[in-house]
C-alpha cells in the first residue's frame, strides 16, 4: 500500500461517516498507531510501544520494528486482525495502539 493510498482510504472512510482517527488528523500521514488504520493492506512496523513485557511479547510473536504485516480486518479503532510471518494474530485495542505503522514499500 502506498502512502497516498494509506491516507486516502482512511479519508474516504471518514467521508462515509465512519470513525477514523486518521481522517481527523490528516497531517500525520506518515506514522500512526495500527488501531487508527482503517484500511486493509500491507504495513510496516515502525516501533512497538508499551511496557517492557508487552514489547518483549510482541517481539516474540514477530511484531518487531522493520517487520511487515498485513492488516486483514481493521475493525476501525477497535481490535484488529493482522497476518505476520505467515500466521494470523488478533490484537486488542491496547495492543494495536502500541504498534506504530506506516505504509509498506512493497504495496
Amino acid at each position, binding site marked *: 500500500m502506498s502512502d497516498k493510498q494509506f491516507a486516502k482510504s482512511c479519508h474516504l472512510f471518514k467521508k462515509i461517516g465512519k470513525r477514523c482517527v486518521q481522517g481527523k488528523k490528516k497531517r500525520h500521514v506518515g506514522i500512526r498507531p495500527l488501531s487508527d488504520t482503517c484500511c486493509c493492506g500491507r504495513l510496516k512496523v515502525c516501533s512497538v510501544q508499551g511496557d517492557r*513485557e508487552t*514489547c518483549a511479547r510482541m517481539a*516474540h510473536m514477530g511484531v518487531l520494528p522493520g517487520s511487515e504485516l498485513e492488516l486483514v*480486518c481493521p475493525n476501525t479503532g477497535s481490535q484488529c*486482525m493482522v497476518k505476520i510471518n505467515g500466521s494470523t*494474530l*488478533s490484537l486488542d485495542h*491496547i495492543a494495536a495502539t502500541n504498534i506504530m505503522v506506516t505504509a509498506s514499500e512493497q504495496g
Partner: protein
Amino acid sequence: MENVIHLALAGNPNAGKTTLFNFLTGARQHVGNYPGITVEQKEGCCIHDDFGLSIVDLPGTYSLTAYSAEELVARDYLVNNNPDVVINVVDASNLERNLYLTSQFLELGTPLIIALNMVDVAESRGFVIDAEKLSELIGVPVVPIVARSGKGVNALLDQVVTMVRDKKQTEPILLRYGSDIDQVLTQITPVITEHGLLTSTYPARWVGVKLLENDKQIISIAQEEQPEITQQLLDQCEKVATHLKTTAGVYPESVVADHRYGFIKSILRQNVVTQKFVGDRLYTSDRIDKIVTHRFLGPLIMAAVLFGLYYFTFTFSGSLVGAFESTFAFLSSTANNLLPDGPIKSMVISGIIDGVGGVMGFVPIIMFMFFGIAILEDSGYLARVAFMMDRIFHTFGLHGSSVMPFIVSGGIAGGCAVPGVMATRTLRSPRERLATLLTVPFMNCGAKLPVLTLIIGAFFADHQAVYMFFATLLAWMVALCAAKFLRLTVLRGESTPFVMELPPYRFPTFRGLLIHTWERTWQYMKKAGTVILGISILLWAMMTYPSLPESQVAKFEQQHQEIATSYQKTDGEQSEQAYEMALQELQSQEAMTRLRHSLAGRIGLAMENLTQLAGIDWRTNIALLGGFAAKEVIISTLGTAYSLGEVDPEESTPLKVRLAEDPNWNPVVALAVLVFIMFYAPCFVTVVCIAKESGSWKWAFFSIGFNTTLAFLMAVGIFQLGTMLA
C-alpha cells in the same frame, strides 16, 4: 521395562502436539482448533522397536521466556526433567513463526528432533520444504509428518530411537545478537560460569541471555541463589537496556528476537522452502475471516450460529430423550415387580433409578450439544468468537484471553467450570485472571444444562430453544457484570494488552467429531454412574432417615384401616375409585410427613424461612444443597424428593410433569429457581480448583459467598416482581 525413553512434545500453540500425542499413545486427549487447549502436561506411553516411550505432551509456548503460567509449565518440565529427546512439533505451513521456538531450543542445547507437521497443508499452499536441507542447516533431525493421519510418525519414532541409541549429545548453538548485546554477553558469561550461577541447570550463556531479556523467573531464582553476583550482572544488563532504549528505542529482548528471526530467515532463504505456485497472499481462512469477523455481520453470524446450535440440539434429540425416559420407567416398574417391599426397594427405585435415571435421561441432549460444539471448535470458529468478544470483554474489565475460559466453562452451554478455571492460566495479569476465574462458574456448564432443560421443558416447553438461548445470554451478561463489579472493587487495576494467534479454518474430520462427542458424553455418563450415584444414595438416605416415630406410623396405619373399613361397606365402581383416591392421598401425606421428618427434610425446612422469599420450597432446598456436590445432583435429588411416596411405578410420571403439576411450582417460581441454579455457589470440585489456581482459599470462599448472594438476590427480585405482576 529397561529401555524406556522419556520423550517430550513441545512446540507453538496449535501446532498439533496433542494430535501427535493422541496418535502415539492412543489417548483421547482433548484437541481443539484454537491455541491454549492444553494448559498442563499430559502423560502417556507407547512401544516402538523394543523401546518403551514415556511421552509428555506440554502446553504450547511461543518462547522459552515464560510469560504465562502454562508457558512456565513447559519450560520447567524441559529444564528440570531433562527428557531424553524433545520432539519439537512445528507447523510446516507456518515455518518461520514456529522455528522461533526451535532456535531457542537450539540455544539451550536441548536434545531435539523436529517433527515437521501438517506438510500436506503447506503443500496445498504451494510450499515445498526440503527437510534434509533444513536438518543439515540447523544440525538436528527433521522428519515430515502429518499427525492427523499418522503419516511419517514411524519414521519420527525411528529417529528418536536412533538418537537415543547413538547417545548423541546436543551442544548449545551460539547465536549472535548484535554488537551491543554480544559485548555484554561476552562480559557476563564468564562471571556466570565462574560463580556457577544456575549453571548446574542451564548453559551459562543462556542464563546471560535470560538476564538480558529480563526473565522474571530466572532473575528470581538467581537472586535467591547468589544475590550479590546477580545484582552485579543485572546492573550490567540494565546499562545495555538503557543504551538500546535511548539509541534505538527498543529493549534488549526485541533485539534478541530480531536476531533469532534473522537466523531463521537466513536458513529458510537457502532453498529450504520453495514455492511451486504463487498462491493468493490471503488464504481462504483470511477471506472467510473478512466476512465472519466483520464489524456488523460478525455478531449477527455468531448469534445465528449459536441459535442454530440450540435448534439443532433440541429438535433432533427429542425422540432419543423420550426413549431414555421410557427405558428408566420400564426399569422402575421391573424393580417394583421383582423386589420385595422395604428400604432396599425404596433405595433402588427412589435413590438409584429415579436419581441416576433423571441425569442419564439428558444424555441425548448432551451428546447433540457436544457434537455441535465440536464442529465449531474443530473448524476454528470458536477462536473467532473469542476475537469478536474481546472488545466486549474489555468493556467489562476482562481480557481477550478470558473468552476461552468462558467458552470452555460453558459459554456455549455444555462445558465445565473446572477446565475453564484452569484455562485462565493463559492470562498474564493476576487481576484479570482472578476476575475471570471467579466469574467463569456463572456459565451454563454441562451439569447445569439438564437442570435448565428440565425446568424450561416443564414450564416453557413451547419455546425450549429460545429460552435456552436466552439462558446462555443471561449467563454471559451476569458473568460480565459481575466481572466489572469485581474489577471496580476488589480487583481494581489497568488492563493488559491481548494478543492471540488465530488458527486457520479446518474441515473437522467426522472421526474427530465423534471422538470429541463421545469423550465428553462418556465423562458425563461416568459421572452419573459414579459420583452422582453415590451422592444420590446418600441423599436418599438423608431423605429417608430418621424414620417416623412408632406413634405416627401407628396413626397412619390406623387411618389406612379406617379408609379400608369405610369403603368395604359400599359396593360399585365409583366407590372403588373413591377408595383408591383416598388411599393415594393418605400415602402422599405419609410420604410428605416422612420426608419432613428426615434429616434432609429438616435442613430444607430450616432454610425455607429464607428461601421462600424467592419462592423456593423446602424440597427444592434439599436439591440445591445437593447441587453443591455436583450440579447434576439437583435433578437426581428433585427426582428422589418428588418420587418418594409414589405408589404405582407403572403410573410413574416424568419429573418435569411432576414439577409442572406441583402446587408449589409455577412459571414465576421456575424462573426464580432457574436463575438461582445458574448463578449460585460453584460445585465443590470447581471451588477446590479456584483455591488451587488463585493460590488461596480466601478466593474460593469468596466465590461461594459472592455467587450465592448474587444468585439469591436475583431470584428474590424475579419472584417478588413476578408475583406482583401475576
